[in-house]
């Protein structure tokens, strides 16, 4: 059965690229535009979350904490999208429960590399 990945980003183009790449690889994709939207759509079988950190309404760190607080998603892989300069953010994200990170900008290959590393 194909796995479902949620991509959370306020930039529609990044979301589109992530969704395209993952769908091409056979994953089902749920798109959300920010943390709040993501939490609303988080139900049923979601096997992994790829989230941006800087977002309106609810940022990535807050989202990760909220996801980890739900028993059903306590151990699913959550990968955050960071930029090189966000070293402290990265640490914050890890503490909140992020599984790993992808540094922007990234290629479809890099994205899939990380997805395959944490989701199997």
């Amino acid at each position, binding site marked *: *059965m194909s796995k479902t990945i949620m991509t959370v980003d306020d930039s529609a183009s990044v979301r589109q*690229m992530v969704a395209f790449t993952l769908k091409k690889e056979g994953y089902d994709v749920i798109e959300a535009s920010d943390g709040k939207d993501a939490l609303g759509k988080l139900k049923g079988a979601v096997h992994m979350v790829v989230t941006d950190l800087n977002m309106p309404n609810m940022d990535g760190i807050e989202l990760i904490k909220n996801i980890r607080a739900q028993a059903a998603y306590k151990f699913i892989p959550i990968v955050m999208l960071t930029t090189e300069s966000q070293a402290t953010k990265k640490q914050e994200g890890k503490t909140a*429960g992020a599984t790993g990170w992808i540094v922007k900008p990234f290629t479809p290959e890099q994205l899939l590399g990380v997805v395959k*590393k944490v989701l*199997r």
Partner: protein
Amino acid sequence: MSQDDMHRMAFREEAGELLGELEASLLALEDQPDDQDLINRVFRAMHTIKGSGAMFGFDDIAAFTHEVETVFDKVRNGLFPVCKDLLDLTLAARDHILLLLEDADSAEDPDAAIQTEGRRILEGLRRLSPDSPVPQAQALPSEPDVERGYVTYRIRFRPGPGFYATGNNPLNFLEDVSELGTTRIFLHTEDVPCLEDIDPEICHAWWDIILGTHKSYSLVQDVFSFVEDDCELSIEQIDAADAADAAPPKKLGEILVDRGDLAPDDLALALSAQKRLGVVLADSGLVPKPRVEAALVEQQTVRDMRKVREPAVETTSSLRVAAEKLDELVDLVGELVIVQSQIKQAVLERGDPMLKSLSEHLERLSDDLRDSTLGIRMLPIGATFSRFRRLVRDLSAELGKEIDLTTSGEETEMDKTVIERLGDPLVHLLRNSIDHGVERPDERRAAGKPPRGVVSLSAEHSGGAVVIRIVDDGRGLDPVAIRAKAVERGLMSPDVESSDKEIYNLIFLPGFSTAKAITNVSGRGVGMDVVKRAIESLRGAVEIDSEPGRGTAITVRLPLTLAIIDGLQVQTGQEFYVAPLSIVEECVDLPRDEAGEGDRIINLRGEIVPYIRLRDFFSISGVPPAVEQVVISSVEGARVGIVVDRVIGEHQTVIKSLGRIYRDVEGLSGATIKGDGTMALILDLPGLLRASAEQGN
């Protein structure tokens, strides 16, 4: 064609069109250099080529176009005007992209001339554009993945208490490390508490991994980059290629001290006990037993890896050889094996110990030679599997079904000829699974199954055979429907009791189909018997198993090679025969009281086994010996006895095909030459059975 190729193809078409538009826009710009709309059009074309190019792996094109696009971005923003030089260069750039596009599929690196031309164009463009930004050192992280010498690392990986809380799974890391090279993994469970004290959200186990690889230290480290802070991790180089000659492999005590599991003083003390160190240390409790074992594993691994290291470095080169040359070689090796067994037999009769040892040596060599020659013909089955992805995709779309194909065991190697002749039967089996097996999404939902069906295709070695399985999670076979159909077609009589498995096997009979509607995919009822015959002609067997509502599994078992088999030599009258050893189960005497005309059944430890008398089947004249022998073999899931005069023994059989005239003789599949130079016929037991059944009727 793979998905990727399809995208690349689509990109190619798109890029071709864009380049055409680009050319037109540039030429138009020549007349109207201030037309903002044209400038925008040029920019957009470049932008799309760059973006999509990077997406589909045309990195050269993306990098090159990026720079041209940057220049046009400036033109667009009014930083400098369109001039003839710019148009000349951009037209040249457009031609260059076209070249790169055509060049992209050739395996070789881009032509040096093309590269130079590309640099010339970019240089020119940079000179044109004002205050050119320092050519953005597009530091695409240059792979530090330099092939280095073969290095052995010791990795101690101990997940911390917060490990699971970050959604990581320690096993993933073990798998990732294993992909870097050869690993031995040692699991430490000594810190796992008793059941009542266990906190299941904490990982208590930890691992020692010995990794032999060409990869660099940083690549090994990269595997753990996500969890560096969440685990205790140490990666140490413990052996390298150049150290191999210098130092002898480390002793157990040294390894333990290295790892910090043992203090040097304690080592000296333990060594003085003059017993095997591992035993002393474990007994005395200086080092917990598992850690001693882990260290021993490391020691052994380093030794093993030193052994494989030398050849491992040189495996990259390969050679293309015409298939006929290989066939000729296989043939020659076959002849050699025959001569060798003749020598062996001659030497045995002579009883000279020196000749005997020479002949044994020769046997070993020719066996090795045979194995490696046949090995050359072996190809991984993966290429065939990937062909099926498209088939599954297209077919399921056509039938309105959603199906995922999963494959495993692509690396399984088989004889080239077998792989080639296997393609069609596998296609047919897959079509059947997709057409008859997997249900439509709405039916699946109604049955409480996920709407996407899964068909899995796997290959693995099992003894001297390769087992290929096609499993779907569809509706399964309906034994009642099959039975009814078989009765209707007169393929079985209505009052026969039979197991589900026997009923499933009916679908392999000629002229059988239960599909309600005939689709153009399968279902004309000509498929399965053809499949079965094709597989049997490869000396294989096919088996079917099913669970209603849960799915169907088809297992195809095939020999590794067609050229040489292990056979059992038997004699009847003056004739010699060989039965493929793979289907022989045992040999027993035919009890005299059962040897009469009677019912042709023997009682084998309480089981009733029917038999065929070879003497009768081939109409061999003469008097049978007082005690005949029975070769019990398993044919198509049933046990059958073949009665012969005498069982001679195992025989390494090089298969020679029969001439055209004899090709259709029932019960025989080929011939071979025996040790003494005379001929033996190879029995085709399934065929023999069929023919005998027909005669009986």
